[in-house]
């Protein structure tokens, strides 16, 4: 029995909740990034500027006569994560609506959380392990276009890997034991991930004298920012949808 209009809210209602969840999660991620990541960005910029002063011809990314000062960029962090979070929350809500016809029975928030987890794994963790985030002063400006394209491609491949995992899970059949379905899921996911890691080009552009601990700390803070973002989107979206469902159940027939 497919869902009816009582249990599935209209697209706009879901979309608004996704955007709101994304905006709030984005601001939370921005707060995390400000506390955990900004000190490392500052330290990296200090190294970058020291290098630029040593050899003026290098001039990778001039922060001195920039349009926006460092204070503005630190504040702009919240604008960036807020807008990015809203966009991601909206896309999650759209995916939620598109997949809702596959859902059986009432949604208890699981599918929203599963989608956020899938996005975190496919669009963040898989690309991050191949192309980890770089602080200022790391990365050759000459290869930025190539790195941008390969990064985006890796995001797509990561999502394909997650999709292959879910395909593996379902292909084994519902009567199969859980361990077998999970093994098929892991197999499908790892197959796509491993092949794309081998096929996609690598970039080794960390300067030899860049502090390894700073690079590690920055990358951990960057990954943490995305983890906060997607965990927040998943939890907030599930909570908002739960609230919406109860509200609709209260005004319409108390069917649930």
């Amino acid at each position, binding site marked *: 029995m497919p869902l009816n*209009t009582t249990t599935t809210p209209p697209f706009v209602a879901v979309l608004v909740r996704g955007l709101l969840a994304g905006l709030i999660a984005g601001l939370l991620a921005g707060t995390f*990034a400000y506390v955990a990541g900004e000190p490392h960005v500052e330290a990296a910029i200090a190294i970058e500027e020291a290098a630029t002063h040593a050899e003026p011809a290098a001039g990778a*990314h001039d922060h001195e006569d920039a349009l926006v000062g460092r204070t503005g960029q630190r504040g702009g962090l919240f604008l960036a994560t807020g807008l990015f979070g809203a966009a991601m929350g909206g896309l999650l809500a759209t995916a939620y*609506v598109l997949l*809702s016809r596959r859902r059986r029975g009432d949604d208890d928030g699981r599918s929203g959380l599963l989608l956020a987890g899938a996005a975190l794994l496919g669009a963040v963790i898989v690309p991050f392990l191949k192309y980890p985030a770089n602080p*200022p002063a790391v990365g050759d400006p000459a290869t930025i276009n190539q790195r941008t394209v390969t990064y985006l491609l890796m995001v797509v491949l990561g999502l394909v890997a997650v999709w292959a995992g879910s395909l593996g899970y379902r292909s084994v059949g519902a009567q199969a034991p859980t361990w077998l379905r999970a093994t098929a899921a892991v197999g499908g996911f790892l197959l796509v991930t491993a092949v794309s890691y081998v096929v996609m080009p690598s970039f080794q552009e960390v300067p030899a004298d860049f502090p390894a601990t700073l690079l590690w700390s920055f990358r951990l803070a*960057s990954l943490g920012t995305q983890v906060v973002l997607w965990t927040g989107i998943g939890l907030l979206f599930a909570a908002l949808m739960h609230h919406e469902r109860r509200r609709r159940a209260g005004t319409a027939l108390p069917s649930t």
Partner: protein
Amino acid sequence: MSSSASSQPVVHPAGSVRLLWPVLATVAVLTLLAYLVAFDQGAVSRSGMYLHELMHDGRHLLGVPCH
């Protein structure tokens, strides 16, 4: 979408073909928004490099290749 429309009632909002254009428009707008934050260098925002510079730290900490 068409296969689901034939197998399910038309009133069902999620599987309906009526959602095709709203969904496409939403995805387009949200992709543009994410592009503005992560990759635009003034070509779309028409603000020169201002927005790009303003969101510099966010790009780095979201893990997007920046420079």
